[in-house]
Each structure stands twice: as structure tokens, then as C-alpha cells.
């Protein structure tokens, strides 16, 4: 009985809605911070010493906008599944990148919510945080029912036209 209740609570679409809004705000914020300072973000990417040099600038230009797009998608509930998939993919990549850098002993800033090269250096807590956020993304993919989604509104408007 208790177990069933926990499962029902865990699989609740309302919990998924909460995760959607939470991740949405986080991704829009993280994207905007990087859009303001693309050079700082490029520098943060370079400091990881994982990517080849030719990939740094294109990623520094595009990743922040993709973050904003998927953040808006989660907040508005439009193209929700795609948004949740990209968010989860990005979080998995970030967690791996931070983990590799920690194993290699790099003392670098995350570049996650600040583009300052002198921000607090990464720790294993950053990996844990990204994995928790990844869990939220997967939850959305599995259990979201499209509550508070703008999709029906958009579809109705389009059909009227």
C-alpha cells in the first residue's frame, strides 16, 4: 500500500510539472548569462581541455541559445519531449565533462551559471547537482502529461486561421 502510494507520488505529472518549471528557469538563466559574455564562455570551454580548438567558438555561440530554447520549451510546455530530451542530453554531457576534468585534476571554473574564469572551481558536488537535474529531465520524459502547456492554445489558434 505504502509502496504503491510512493510510486503514484513519484510518477505524478504534477511533480513532473514542477521539475519542468525548475529546469526551464535554470536553463533560460544559464543561457542568458552565457549569451551576454560569449568570450567568457568560450574561455570556460577552452579551460576544460576536452574539445578540439575548432569546436570551441561554434559551441560558445550556439550552446547558450539552445539552452534558452529548451528552457522556454519546458516552461511553455511546447515541444516538451524534445526539450526534455535535449536538456537531459546536455546535463549528461556536462556531468561527464566535469567528472573527467576532476579526475584529471583540473582546477577550473564550471562555466555553468557564470562565465567568470575566477568563479568557484568545480567539485564533485557539481557532478551530483548535474545528475540530480538529469534525473528531473528523465522524469519529465517519462511522466509528463503536458499540464500547463501552451500547445493546445497554439494549435487552436492555428486551426482557427
Amino acid at each position, binding site marked *: 500500500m505504502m509502496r504503491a502510494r510512493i510510486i503514484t507520488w513519484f510518477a505524478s505529472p504534477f511533480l513532473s510539472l514542477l521539475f519542468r518549471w525548475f529546469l526551464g528557469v535554470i536553463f533560460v538563466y544559464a543561457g542568458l548569462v552565457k*549569451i551576454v559574455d*560569449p*568570450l567568457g564562455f*568560450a*574561455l570556460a570551454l*577552452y579551460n576544460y581541455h576536452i574539445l578540439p*580548438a*575548432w569546436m*570551441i*567558438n*561554434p559551441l*560558445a*555561440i*550556439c550552446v*547558450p*541559445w*539552445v*539552452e*534558452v*530554447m*529548451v528552457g522556454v*520549451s519546458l516552461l511553455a510546455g511546447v*515541444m*516538451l*519531449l*524534445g*526539450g*526534455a*530530451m*535535449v536538456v537531459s*542530453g546536455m546535463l549528461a554531457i556536462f556531468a561527464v565533462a566535469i567528472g573527467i576534468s576532476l579526475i584529471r585534476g583540473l582546477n577550473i571554473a564550471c562555466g555553468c551559471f557564470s562565465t*567568470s*574564469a*575566477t568563479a568557484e572551481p568545480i567539485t564533485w558536488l557539481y557532478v551530483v547537482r548535474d545528475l540530480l537535474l538529469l534525473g528531473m529531465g528523465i522524469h519529465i*520524459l517519462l511522466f509528463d502529461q503536458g499540464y500547463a502547456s501552451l500547445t493546445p492554445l497554439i494549435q487552436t489558434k492555428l486551426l482557427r486561421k
Partner: protein
Amino acid sequence: MTAVRKNRKPRTGTLRLSRTIWQGIFLVCLGALLAAGFNSIRSTGLPWTGAWSPASLAASQRQGLEEIPLQEAWSLSQTGRALFVDARDPASFYEGHIKGALNCPPGGAARYLEEIRILALSGLVIIAYCDGVDCPLSPELARSLQQAGVPSVRVLMDGWGRWRKAGYPTEKGNR
């Protein structure tokens, strides 16, 4: 009926997966398109191909900042017209720093801001330094001082290493 249901289930799953993937691709492409458009019209846009190396990194950190040659920093210090601000962490500062320098890591710049501003207005040249060619601390400190309205801020790149090598006076301890 059961057979129909059994056939439908994986089909719905496949459709959901395919929709997820296409939506994801669409969002990534839309983000990339907006990024390319915005990057082409903004004044601080990045080139698509950047030559990332320690040298180019140091150059990008210096962007918009005025560097000071070692010799000039030395002669300014000799005439008492320079204030050295050490952007490294307190432990490194304790182990050794340029004689008379103030320890001011970028995160704690606000603490000394008024003092530095008054000294700069009285005619001193503020010289920020840290250790290493690609050390980001001194450019960051210089930038935050500039933004706070401190005049005549300059950066001595790889300041600590070059100063020591030249045999100029250093000291240990806190300040």
C-alpha cells in the same frame, strides 16, 4: 481486441520516440539559427573559427585592458607612483609578493575599492598582476576595478614570475 492493443502499444512508443527526437532536432536547429543571427549583428560577436592556444587565450584576456611593460612598472615603483595589486589567493600572496603590493583577489575587490580609487585619483598607477602567462586573475581584477570607476589601471602580465626573475624587491607575509 487484446491483439490490437498489443500491436498498438509499441507503435505509440515508437511514435513518441520519433516525435521526441524530431522535436529535439528542431529546438537545437532553431537555437543554432538564432545564435548565428544574433552573433552576426552584435558588436561583441565571436568569429566562428577561433585559434585557441595559450597565447591567444592571454590575448583575449587582455582585450580592452592596458598592459604595462616590466621596466615601466619597475621605474614607476621606484618613483613611488605605482600601487601593485596582487590578484592571487591569500596563501600565494603570503608566500611572497611584490614589495608593497596589496592582496586583492577579484572576488574580494570590493573590500579595497575605496582605498584603491582614492590612491588612483591621487595620481598612482594601479598595476594588477598574478602568476603565469594565461593567469586570468589580474585581467579580471583590472576589469572590475575599471568598471568600478578606478582610473589608470594597468596589467603586468605574468607579473609575479617576471618580477622575481628580474630580481626586483619582493617580500613575504600579509598586508
